[in-house]
């Protein structure tokens, strides 16, 4: 054990004293917020060229409304909120098209789209604003006349902002016209059709001292976002530190350092030292990120107070325990693969299945988060390869797992971790000095049994 600690200390310091570690610490939050940054960049780089489109208005009522709405949008809807005001979105520019005698407007306008004169065109049916016919006496809906159609023609169907805007504008106009036609006040309709609002609350309870604690409004940030962040952080830290063990072990083999090491340290102590170092590195990162997160949650107005209340010492303790178990089990497997192979390519072949197993819990984030105490969530969170991530999510998402589930999770995952470290130790012992072709899974099983 003493030598394992010497290995752990040296490898830990080697890892955290590198520039790569410092860069990684800064880079990970940047990568995690990659989606937000990409959104910002695409906003900055948005195409603001005018979207000119022709309108064949057979109703004679829609085009004036579109022109008016476009002018209003030009004035308010396409500029950035902050000073200096910059154009963020393109102008929509409707123009009237009156078909020449004998001309098929669809064909003529399609040619104009192909020639890049216009972005697309709209054909408005004559009766588009009229109310749909009332159902027949038997309650069956009456057939809808064809002249109520609104058709948008384009060769860029993936650009949906413009047809969405048209639909909204024409829809508004149609509703106003229909209400006015029926003699109904629009404001009254809006008030009468307003939806009801559901407040999601926690539960009230009476404390041991007999004091009543009223239910509090639950916060989505505390009940969904926090569990998601904690389990993703756990997952990302495992994925960013454990596979590095494969590389360091393989490097020691390829650079012929391994033989000196195993003549000096028992292979199991060597493996244990490496695992402790990796665990130390990941826990250091956890402390940095969780510490920064707590400081942010405590000082920022953006974070609701329920989030800080949800981060209890117990939550943090569970996080650390699951983090350690995940690192030891996955780390041991990666180290064993590194020891078993002599070439990077061979290692990658063996890594494939392991990567998939590691990723599986990710696919179940959604279902587990929406029904944390459902049967699927309960079963999956006891599968040892998924427990650290999914049980972490359940621990921090109300109502939380039952006590026996936590005990079962710790026992099963603890046994699994122990098994991984034991098996990896056996493979490591033989593999670290093996040369040549990488072994098959069968051969690895044989190594485990060798004396």
């Amino acid at each position: 054990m003493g030598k394992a600690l010497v290995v752990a200390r040296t490898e830990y310091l080697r890892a955290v004293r590198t520039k790569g570690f410092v860069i990684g610490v800064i880079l990970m939050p940047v990568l995690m917020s990659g989606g937000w940054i990409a959104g910002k960049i695409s906003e900055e780089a948005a195409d603001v060229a005018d979207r000119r489109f022709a309108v064949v208005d057979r109703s004679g009522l829609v085009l004036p409304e579109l022109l008016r709405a476009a002018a209003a949008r030009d004035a308010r809807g396409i500029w950035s909120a902050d000073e200096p005001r910059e154009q963020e979105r393109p102008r929509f520019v409707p123009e009237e098209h009156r078909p020449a005698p004998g001309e098929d407007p669809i064909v003529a306008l399609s040619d104009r789209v192909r020639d890049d004169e216009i972005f697309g065109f709209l054909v408005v049916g004559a009766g588009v604003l009229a109310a749909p016919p009332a159902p027949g006496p038997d309650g069956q809906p009456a057939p809808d006349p064809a002249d109520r159609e609104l058709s948008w023609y384009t060769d860029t169907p993936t650009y949906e902002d413009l047809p969405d805007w048209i639909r909204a504008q024409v829809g508004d106009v149609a509703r106003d016209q229909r209400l006015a036609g029926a003699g109904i006040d629009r404001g009254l309709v809006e008030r009468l059709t307003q939806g009801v609002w559901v407040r999601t609350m926690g539960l009230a309870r009476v404390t041991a001292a007999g004091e009543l604690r009223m239910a509090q409004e639950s916060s989505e940030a505390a009940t969904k976002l926090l569990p998601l962040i904690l389990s993703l952080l756990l997952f990302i830290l495992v994925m960013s530190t454990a596979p590095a063990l494969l590389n360091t072990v393989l490097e020691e083999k390829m650079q012929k350092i391994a033989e000196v090491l195993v003549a000096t340290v028992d292979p199991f102590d060597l493996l244990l030292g490496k695992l402790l170092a990796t665990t130390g590195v990941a826990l250091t990162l956890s402390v940095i990120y969780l510490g920064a997160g707590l400081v942010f949650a405590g000082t920022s107005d953006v974070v609701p107070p329920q989030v800080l209340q949800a981060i209890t010492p117990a939550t943090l303790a569970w996080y650390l325990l699951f983090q350690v178990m995940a690192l030891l089990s996955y780390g041991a497997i990666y180290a064993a693969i590194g020891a078993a192979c002599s070439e990077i390519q061979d290692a990658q072949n063996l890594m494939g299945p392991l990567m998939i197993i590691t990723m599986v819990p990710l696919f179940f984030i959604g279902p587990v988060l929406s029904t944390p105490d459902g049967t699927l969530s309960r079963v999956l969170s006891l599968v040892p390869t998924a427990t650290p991530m999914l049980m972490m999510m359940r621990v921090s998402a109300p109502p939380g797992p039952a006590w026996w589930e936590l005990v079962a999770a710790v026992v099963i995952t603890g046994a699994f971790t122990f098994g991984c470290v034991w098996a990896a130790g056996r493979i490591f012992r033989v593999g670290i000095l093996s040369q040549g072709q990488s072994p098959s899974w069968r051969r690895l099983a044989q190594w485990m049994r060798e004396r």
Partner: protein
Amino acid sequence: MSDAIRLTSVGKTFGEHVAVSDLSLVVPAGRIYGFIGPNGSGKTTTLRMILHILLPDSGTVEVLGQQVRRAASDRIGYLPEERGLYKKLKVLDLLVYYGALKGLPRARARQAGREWLARLGLQDWSERKVEQLSKGMAQKVQFIATVLHAPELLILDEPFSGLDPVNLQALRDAILELNRAGTTVLFSTHDMSMAERMCDQIGMIFRGRKVLDGTLDEIQRRYGDDTVRLRAADARAALDGHPAVAGVLDMGRYQELRLAPGADPQALLAHLAARTRVDLFEVARPSLHDIFVRIAGPEADAAARASSGAAAGEAG
């Protein structure tokens, strides 16, 4: 005198391949023992069993008076044939790490590291990264890492390969000095003249079996005075299949002749003198090199294969 290493009927097989078979070997404490044998004969496997990196399938391995069941005794220093160091570490940090792994307190390891670096002329390199060292320097650093903790037993696998004469001399002096201070040294080598000069005792292993064991004198005596060192103009033509000569080993500047049993060296000298100018004619014991080739050379190898083939044929 007690024994530093005692192997008794040790065997080790990898799958179908018998690496070491029924090997018994004793290395007395305080001696320098040379371990020779052709490539693939089982030397490294034997060394790894002595170190308990590998466990024997049969027999017993006793090292420094103990039948250790696990690797990594801090009383042993081991320099493997294939060497490697952490390239990104600084030289002194690396030595401290290896010293700490061998149980030295860090401060003590640092001090010993500095002393050894100075002794081998590397004092200015202690704060440089290993990747900046030349090959010879890296080899010396690896040697220091092996001896830093003052081991009682030093096991060196091909310690001199790839060294220039100056570095070789420095390393040899260091090994001899450690031996004088009481360290037992077991080293494997392909350099027969080095083994002749340095070793108190020599063992040879061939095809997993021990074929020689003893002092140089004992070994040479066993092969008798049947060797002639000859330097002569156009020696090969002058010899011309003379029946007194059983074999010729070309050493470059001279030929080493093996005399046929019962042949008279004086008659051979007279034969040669009548045909060419003889610059050197020395009746001697065979060199270790010659003995090695007699045991493991192509002729011996072919004979061994033929006999094992015949045995297999008979068995079949």
